[in-house]
């Protein structure tokens, strides 16, 4: 293929992925709002409400606070959204292998994941409001706290692959897909991996800044914190970034823990089904979307309905102490399993 074609394919792929992520993310948000309303004994908004919200925000004036630094203030939401969509380029979406899988691995994803947080911090500080500053400080602390368990999980598995499958690149999601972790782990490792899954789900909630970890934007305390001054188009972009996050983070969990597809199973059990490649693709993408939705229901909808907001020191203690300890135990279990100690 010529270089131009690769570039073109990349651009078109990114566009398609971006639109898919935004549309799907907004729908997931709609379902999340509806379900959480039902959990709270309410009716809740119609499913298409997030789309309407975005439309309304885009129509509204974007106010620039007097004390704000304009270029930082305006670029923060763009960077946030762009970084999240680029994470998707490195992640396998169901049956579709990662678009840029060849040029980056898990390390890139981990780095890219920090960018939206940093953009929010910078945007918050640059808006020059005391509420936004406090929100940004809190976001900073939260960012540092949930990175630790997150990287612990990823690197434990990378180390595991370097032992179990030395021929495959350890830090690539491709490896997670071809050799699912559950297939190489014994009982002890299974328990370890389950603990990791729970930890990762809690990290996801923190990363998405939902109750009980919505500390940086805590509405009743600091009036939406970081976003206190954002309005109109800028806020719409943050809103979209939040929606895309609801696809990206579950996609990471899926890539690590549930890289399975439905179509091989289907064709095995129902050989009569007319399973062309395209149908299989469609089925698998739908299956992927279902997995994303389920993870969102557990990590977002359920979490934000069943708990009260924590204070920042309590959240840090949870991540650094409780989840870190759980992570260490899980790591030891996995290690023991892989090394054949148990």
């Amino acid at each position, binding site marked *: 293929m010529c270089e131009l074609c690769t570039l073109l394919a990349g651009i078109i792929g990114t566009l398609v992925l971006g639109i898919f992520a935004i549309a799907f993310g907004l729908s997931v948000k709609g379902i999340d709002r509806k379900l959480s309303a039902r959990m709270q004994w309410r009716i809740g908004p119609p499913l298409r409400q997030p789309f309407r919200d975005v439309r309304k925000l885009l129509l509204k004036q974007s106010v620039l606070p007097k004390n704000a630094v304009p270029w930082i203030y305006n670029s923060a939401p763009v960077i946030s959204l762009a970084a999240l969509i680029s994470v998707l380029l490195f992640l396998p979406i169901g049956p579709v292998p990662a678009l840029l899988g060849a040029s980056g691995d898990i390390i890139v994803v981990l780095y890219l994941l920090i960018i939206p947080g940093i953009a929010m911090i910078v945007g918050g500080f640059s808006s020059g409001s005391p509420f936004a*500053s406090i929100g940004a*400080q809190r976001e900073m602390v939260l960012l540092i706290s949930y990175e630790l368990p997150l990287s612990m999980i990823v690197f434990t598995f990378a180390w595991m692959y370097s032992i179990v499958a030395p021929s495959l690149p350890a830090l690539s999601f491709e490896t997670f897909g071809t050799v699912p972790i559950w297939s190489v782990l014994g009982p002890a490792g299974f328990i370890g991996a389950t603990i990791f899954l729970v930890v990762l789900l809690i990290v996801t909630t923190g990363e998405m800044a939902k109750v*009980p970890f919505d500390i940086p934007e805590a509405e009743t*305390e600091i*009036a939406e914190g970081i976003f206190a001054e954002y309005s109109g188009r800028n806020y719409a972009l943050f809103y979209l970034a939040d929606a895309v996050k609801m696809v990206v983070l579950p996609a990471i969990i899926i890539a690590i823990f549930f890289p399975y597809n439905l179509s091989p199973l289907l064709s095995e059990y129902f050989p009569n089904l007319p399973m062309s490649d395209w149908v299989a693709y469609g089925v698998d993408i739908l299956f992927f979307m279902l997995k994303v939705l389920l993870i969102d229901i557990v990590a977002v909808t359920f979490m934000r309905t069943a708990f009260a*907001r924590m*204070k920042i020191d309590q959240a840090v203690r949870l991540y650094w102490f409780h989840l870190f300890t759980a992570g260490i135990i899980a790591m030891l279990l996995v290690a023991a399993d892989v090394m054949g100690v148990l």
Partner: protein
Amino acid sequence: MEMSDEALYTIPVGPVHPALKEPIELDLRVEGERIVGVDVKCSQAHRGIEWLGMNRNNSIQNIYLAERVCGICNVCHPYCMVLAVEEAAGIEVPERADYIRTIVAEMERIHSHLLWAGVAAHEIGFDTVFHYTWALREEIMDAIEYVTGNRVTKGIMMIGGVRRDITKEREERIRKALRYYEEKFEKIEDLVLHDKTIRMRTRNVGILTREDALKLCAVGPVARASGVPKDVRQDYPYGAYADIGVRAILPDQYTGEIIGDVYDRIVVRLLEVKQSIQIIHDALDNIPQGDIVAEKNLVKLLSMLKRAEGEGIGRVEAPRGEDIHYVRLRQGEEPFLSWKIRAPTYNNVLPWIPMLLGAEIADVPIVAASTDPCMSCLNRVTVVDESSRKEFTLTKERMHEMSVRKTRRMMRHV
């Protein structure tokens, strides 16, 4: 303050802030997340109710004015006012009226405490409990509507008695509501008091010591949570409370210790809901027969009040704490010569300062909410003229004119 001023931030909480449902301004000096200085400013919500009662209205009109001091304690304020007027004019209240007043006041307490539990949960980001408690509160609202004719402004108090009797059907309706709450109480208690995240946010937060509570004259559940057994229903019985024998509820009855933090205030309020259910049962069981009002003819009553001369004090234990009204009547004049309303929040604002000092910013909403503050609505707006940086106060007329203009503008586009 030892810190240099640069390290300190000033955070204005209010007059308009999502944590505050009513306008009040808290200026917090913070150092990181820790609060080192608090100042309260209240000048957002004075409506001149006392002035109206002293200059414009006659006694009967004042009942409804007092009802509008607060939307939630709308039985306590008129109750308090009629007690004061009855003392000033020397009117004896029939026993049945005492009982009916007690029942309605206790129904209000159930609704107010449930409402508060929801608001407090919302302040710590627990919207689920907020929605549940408000849904459960509907039952008592419906019962109140059935008994008094309206959900919120009950309009049941009258000088010398009450305006509506509790008939057989109304009694049945109240009993139905009480059964509902007896059944649901355990669930509410479980949801609020046994939740780990709520405990994390409220235990050892916003502590008010017994000493501070006495010094700063805290009242109601705030004082009781700090271990001061002060309850007007017990100390200074009115209505049917002396017959029923109400005792002040302290948090150690449930937890075994008194800390004086937000959690203790939650405990006190929830136990009071249970106590109120019992009080209403007792009052309904023992309600005497007879008149419900001392003077049925309102025209006679009005002229009697016009001739009266004297002063009186009414005290009522509102859901938020002690409510006190002082009324002075002068012969030949319909409006009161003097009227002073002291709502519970008046005394519970100063305790915010010791509660908040040393707390974190994240604690402000729940600590403020834990006293169940009530500021009522605004009477003037301060706007800053951007071009000249001149601050001026918007008068009511000007604001009215502006709103009328805006409404017209909007109506053209409909």
